[in-house]
C-alpha cells in the first residue's frame, strides 16, 4: 500500500480496478453474497442493482430491478451461499435469488428495517426486525421459528459468531436471546437512553451499542460490566469489530476511530485513529474478513482503506458527490463495494492479478 492520500497524479484504486454506476435515489445499503459471487446495492426508490463477479469491471452489465414499492431499508446476504434478502417501507421482506427471481417472504404491518442472517454447513437462520418484534425464520424463510418482543422499536440486530444468540438494541439497552431455546428468556442489558445500533465481539466477549448522545455503550458479557466509549463529534452510524476482535472500528469522527479490545481495553484506554480526512466526517466503515485492513467512507463521498497495524492509507475513491451511505467487503475479501446518498455505486476488485 502507498503511504499518503495525496497521490493525485496516480489514478485511484477505483479507476484502476473498479467501476461505478449512477442510480436514481439514495443507495441505502449494499451486501455481497456469501459465495462472494454477486454484489447488490439497494436504493430509496425500491431498486436493487446486482453486479455478478465477471462483470465487476463493467458497470453497464449490472442488472437493475425494482423489488419494493418504496424505499429499501435493509439488505443482507441470504442464509444460503447465494442471493439476498431485502426489507422495505412497504412492510415486505423479499428474497432476490442469484438468477434474479424475486420471492415474497413476509408482508407485514410495519417497516422491515433490519435483516441479518447466519449460516454454517448444517443450516442457517434469518432474523429481521419490524417495530418492536424480531422474528427468526429457518433458512428457507418460510417457517417462523420464534417472534421476540421488545419494550420499544428495535434499532439493530446481530447474531453472535456461532449463531447461538441474537441481540437487539432499543431504548434503555439491549436484549440477548438464545436462538434455539425451547422457552425464550431474555438477558436484559440495561443502560438508560436511546440505543441506535449494535455490534458483538467475534469471540462473544462484549456487546456494544451506539447511542443517540454520540457515544458507545458496551457490556462485558462475562459479568455485565458496563463500558462507555465517548468523545465523538457526531452519532456513530457504523461500527464493526475486526476479524480477530482486537479492535472495534467506528464512524462518527473525521478519522477512523478504533477502540482496543485487548490488554484490558477499552476501559481506561484511548482509541487509536487509523487515518482520516480533516474536517470530513466518516460515515461508514467495514472490516476486511482476512487481512488487518479497514475501509472507511466519508461525508464528501471519498473512500479509503487503512492498515490497522501500520499507519498506512490507500485511497480508493476521491471526494465528490454525496456522503458514503453503504460499504461492504466480500466474504473472501476480494471486493469492496460502496454507495452514496446521491446514488453512486461502485465495486473495486481487490483480488491478486
Amino acid at each position, binding site marked *: 500500500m502507498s503511504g499518503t492520500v495525496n497521490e493525485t497524479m496516480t489514478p485511484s484504486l477505483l479507476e484502476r480496478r473498479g467501476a461505478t454506476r449512477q442510480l*436514481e*435515489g*439514495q443507495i*441505502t445499503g449494499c451486501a455481497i453474497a456469501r459465495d462472494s459471487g454477486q454484489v447488490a446495492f439497494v436504493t*430509496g*426508490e425500491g431498486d436493487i442493482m446486482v453486479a455478478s463477479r465477471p462483470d465487476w469491471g463493467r458497470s453497464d452489465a449490472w442488472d437493475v430491478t425494482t423489488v419494493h414499492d*418504496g*424505499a429499501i*431499508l435493509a439488505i443482507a446476504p441470504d442464509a444460503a451461499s447465494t442471493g439476498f434478502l431485502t426489507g422495505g*417501507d412497504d412492510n415486505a421482506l423479499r428474497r432476490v435469488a442469484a438468477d434474479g427471481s424475486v420471492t415474497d417472504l413476509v408482508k407485514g*404491518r*410495519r*417497516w422491515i*428495517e433490519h435483516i441479518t442472517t447466519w449460516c454454517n454447513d448444517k443450516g442457517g437462520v434469518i432474523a429481521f426486525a419490524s*417495530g*418492536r418484534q424480531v422474528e427468526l425464520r429457518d433458512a428457507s424463510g418460510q417457517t417462523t421459528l420464534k417472534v421476540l418482543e421488545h419494550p*420499544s*422499536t428495535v*434499532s439493530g440486530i446481530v447474531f453472535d459468531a456461532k449463531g447461538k444468540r441474537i441481540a437487539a438494541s432499543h*431504548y*434503555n439497552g439491549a436484549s440477548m436471546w438464545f436462538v434455539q431455546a425451547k422457552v425464550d428468556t431474555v438477558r436484559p442489558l440495561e443502560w*438508560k*437512553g*436511546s440505543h*441506535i445500533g449494535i455490534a458483538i465481539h467475534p469471540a462473544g466477549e462484549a456487546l456494544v451499542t451506539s*447511542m*443517540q*448522545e454520540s457515544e458507545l455503550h458496551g457490556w462485558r458479557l462475562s459479568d455485565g460490566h458496563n463500558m462507555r466509549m465517548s468523545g465523538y463529534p*457526531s*452519532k456513530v452510524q457504523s461500527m464493526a469489530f475486526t476479524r480477530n476482535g482486537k479492535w472495534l472500528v467506528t464512524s462518527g469522527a473525521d478519522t477512523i476511530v478504533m477502540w482496543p479490545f485487548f490488554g484490558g481495553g477499552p476501559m481506561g484506554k484511548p482509541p487509536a485513529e487509523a487515518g482520516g480526512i480533516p474536517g470530513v466526517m466518516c460515515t461508514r466503515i467495514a472490516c476486511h474478513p482476512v487481512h488487518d485492513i479497514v475501509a472507511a467512507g466519508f461525508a464528501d463521498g471519498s473512500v479509503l482503506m487503512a492498515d490497522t497495524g501500520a499507519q498506512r492509507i490507500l485511497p480508493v475513491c476521491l471526494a465528490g458527490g454525496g456522503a458514503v451511505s453503504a460499504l461492504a467487503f466480500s466474504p473472501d475479501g476480494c471486493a469492496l463495494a460502496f454507495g452514496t446518498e446521491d446514488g453512486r455505486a461502485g465495486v473495486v476488485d481487490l483480488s491478486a492479478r
Partner: protein
Amino acid sequence: MSDTVQASPDAAAQNALVPVTVLTGFLGAGKTTLLNHILTAQHGRKYAVVVNEFGELGVDNDLVVDADEEVFEMNNGCICCTVRGDLIRILGNLMKRRAKFDGIIVETTGLADPAPVAQTFFVDEDVRGKTRLDAVVTVVDAYNVIQTLEESPEAVNQIAFADVIILNKTDLVDEVALATIESRIRSINAVARLHRAQRGDVPLSDVLDQGGFDLQRALEHAPHFLEDTSHSHEADVTSMSFEVEEPLDAAHFQAWIGALLQEKGADILRAKGILNYAGEDRRFAFQAVHMMADGDFIGPWKAGEEPVSRLVFIGRNLNRPQLRRGFESCRAK
C-alpha cells in the same frame, strides 16, 4: 412569502431543508379532518404523513407511516429534555426517498405534550441537517376549549407550543363566546397566528409554509396583548414579551439566555426572539423549547424598519421584572 429574504445564503440553506408541520390538538378537536383537508386540497404537492396508531379517522394519502410516539430522555444534563426517538428514525428513513414528497406532516395523539416533538428538531443532528420544523399547528375545538383548558395541562401546553392555532367548530359558538375564547387563548400564547375555521376549512396558506423562523410580524404585535396582566395568576401559562431598542452584545445575550434556560427551562415552554446584535446588519432569530435553544441570522432589517430586539417567553411562573432586567442587561456597552 414576501418578508423572507431569498437572497441570503442562510435562507437558501433553510429552503433546502424539508419542512415538517406538527399537528397537535385535543381528542375530537378536528385534527384528522384538517389533515384530510390539507391532503385532498389541490396544491399539487405531495406530503408524507406520520400518524399515531390511535388515530380517530382514516388518513387519505399515499405515504402514511404509523408511529408509536416513543419518547426517551436525553442524557445531556437537561432535566426536561425528552425526545421522540421514533420520529428521528422515521424522518431519517423518509429522507431516503426524498424525491417522493415536498413536505412532512406529523400528527400527534390528543394527549401528547408537544415538547418532545419540538425538541427532536433541536437535538438530532441528522434531523436538523435534512429537515426543519416549519410550524406547530394546534387545532382547538371552540365548543369545548374553555372546559378542556381547565381540566388538562396538556391542552394548555398544546396552545403554548403553537405557532399557528386553528380555532375549529366556530359555528357551534356565538360571537361573544368566540371573543372570550380568543382572549383566553391569547393570554396563554400571544404570538401564535390564530385562524377561525369550521370543519377544518382553513386556507392552506394559514397552515403550511409558515416558516418557523419568520417571527418578526408576530413579535411586533405581541406587546399590545401582553401588558394586560389582569387575569393571570402565577401558575398559569402566559406570554411575556420584551423590547430593547439599543443593539445587544451577542456574547452577553448568549450567556444570559443560556443560564436562564438552564435554571428556568422547566417552566419556560417556548422562547422566541428577533435580535439586533451590535456590529451585525442582519437580524438574529432565536428560539428555544424548554432548555434547548438555537438561532440563526436571517437576513438584514428592512429599509425604514427600527432594529428593535424583541423577545417573547411563553411559560409558567414567569417573573416579568427579572426577565426585563436580564434582557436589558444584554445591551452592548
